[in-house]
């Protein structure tokens, strides 16, 4: 099956057609939590992409060695190891990002995108394809985070790419002449306006995500695609290993009633 796919397609599907956030509705927690600024969004996206590509490569390379009964714990250990590596690197080289992301950096471990890709793709495909799939999904995740971040930061804080030097620190001091993002607050207050703080508050996160989701559904509907939907268990990466949640949400509810009766 892997032979018929082209690398380009594997990469590009994660960007739009199967965008992990807006189409597959995975990884909602970090999407909502870290998108108060574009800088955080980029940082989170890049960290998750690194973990995704590395874990996809290793899981795919080991796919014939790992017994299928213990595959989920094995995947979790592999993913957790890479998350720890990334966490230590971020702590050492981009300390400001570590502070900004807080617990959401180690929480990449339980990000459904990564376990989901391991289960759905890397465990069935060759190393090269899995790496490209991981990269595509990671870039799609980063793009969706940046889109959320852009909306929220411009509307909520009146800035864009604020604090970007925190990330650019990786490439040395004062890259881009110490440029630290746009700030529209001066211009705004000159015409008597203020940013809408609500958008960087949690409520604004849910709101922006809802509107973006509606837009994505609208565009998908125009192309005859079904709308993105969260099916309780079906999207859970554990579903495959969990007999009770074999199928979709409906089945869960039925099973639950069966068990209860």
């Amino acid at each position, binding site marked *: 099956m892997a032979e018929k796919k082209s690398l380009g397609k594997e990469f590009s599907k994660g960007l739009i057609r199967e965008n992990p956030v807006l189409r597959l509705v995975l990884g909602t927690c970090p999407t909502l939590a870290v998108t108060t600024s574009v800088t955080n969004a980029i940082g989170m996206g890049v960290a998750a992409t690194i973990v995704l590509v590395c874990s996809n490569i290793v899981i795919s390379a080991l796919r014939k060695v790992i017994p299928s009964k213990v595959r989920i714990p094995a995947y979790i250990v592999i993913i957790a190891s890479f998350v720890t590596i990334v966490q230590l690197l971020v702590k050492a080289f981009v300390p400001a990002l570590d502070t900004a992301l807080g617990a959401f950096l180690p929480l990449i471990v*339980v990000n459904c995108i990564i376990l989901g890709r391991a289960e759905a793709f890397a465990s069935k495909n060759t190393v090269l394809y899995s790496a490209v799939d991981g990269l595509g999904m990671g870039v799609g995740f980063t793009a969706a985070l940046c889109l959320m971040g852009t909306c929220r930061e411009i509307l909520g804080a009146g800035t864009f790419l604020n604090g970007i030097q925190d990330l650019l620190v990786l490439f040395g001091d004062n890259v881009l002449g110490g440029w630290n993002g746009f700030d529209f607050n001066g211009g705004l207050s000159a015409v008597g306006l203020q940013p809408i703080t609500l958008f960087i508050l949690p409520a604004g996160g849910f709101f922006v995500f809802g509107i973006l989701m509606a837009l994505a559904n609208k565009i998908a509907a125009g192309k005859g695609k079904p709308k993105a939907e969260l099916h309780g268990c079906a999207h859970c990466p554990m579903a495959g290993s969990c007999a009770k949640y074999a199928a979709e949400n409906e089945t869960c509810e039925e099973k639950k009633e069966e068990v209860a009766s």
Partner: protein
Amino acid sequence: MKYLIALLVMGLLTNNFVLSKFYGICPFLGVSKKLNTAVGMSAAVIVVMLMATAATYPINKLLVNHDLAFLQTVVFILVIAALVQMVEIVLKKFMKPLYNALGIYLPLITTNCAVLGVVLLNVQEEYTFIQAMVNSLGAGLGFMLAMVLFAGVRGKMEDCDVPEFLQGLPITLIAASLVSLSFLGFSGIIEGMGLLG
């Protein structure tokens, strides 16, 4: 004592785990369609959170004493996964009614970021054992409160005439935004009650 009450109120209201800290959004959106499933799921989360906190606290002490603190993420997720499995087996064998009520949600909880999140937060904030347990309880109750409230909101929403492009997930997210907005009203309650002394 005051500090413990403050922790509990923070987890429940001002820093609600779901609505202001964004932990456990997947079950929040996925399992909140019906009130009884929402209650079952959140009860299971509370139990697992408390057990995970109790189990990881001594393990973390051990890791820190041996300069292995960098292994926290790997060890914690494994402890939680093993714990969830064990709870499921024990419930299935000895407490069938409880298993029927809570057990079926257990496999979902391993990858619930609320559980790992609260454990990591306890470590980051360097809480004592009691404080960590109270914090976990507050977080779990906050999760339950959000789930139950939101299940009610979604129940009401079923009868509404929602524009086509908003149907499904978008309107659910916007409703979540409004519920989250209402929790903003609690900000300042800790200072107001003088709980942080």
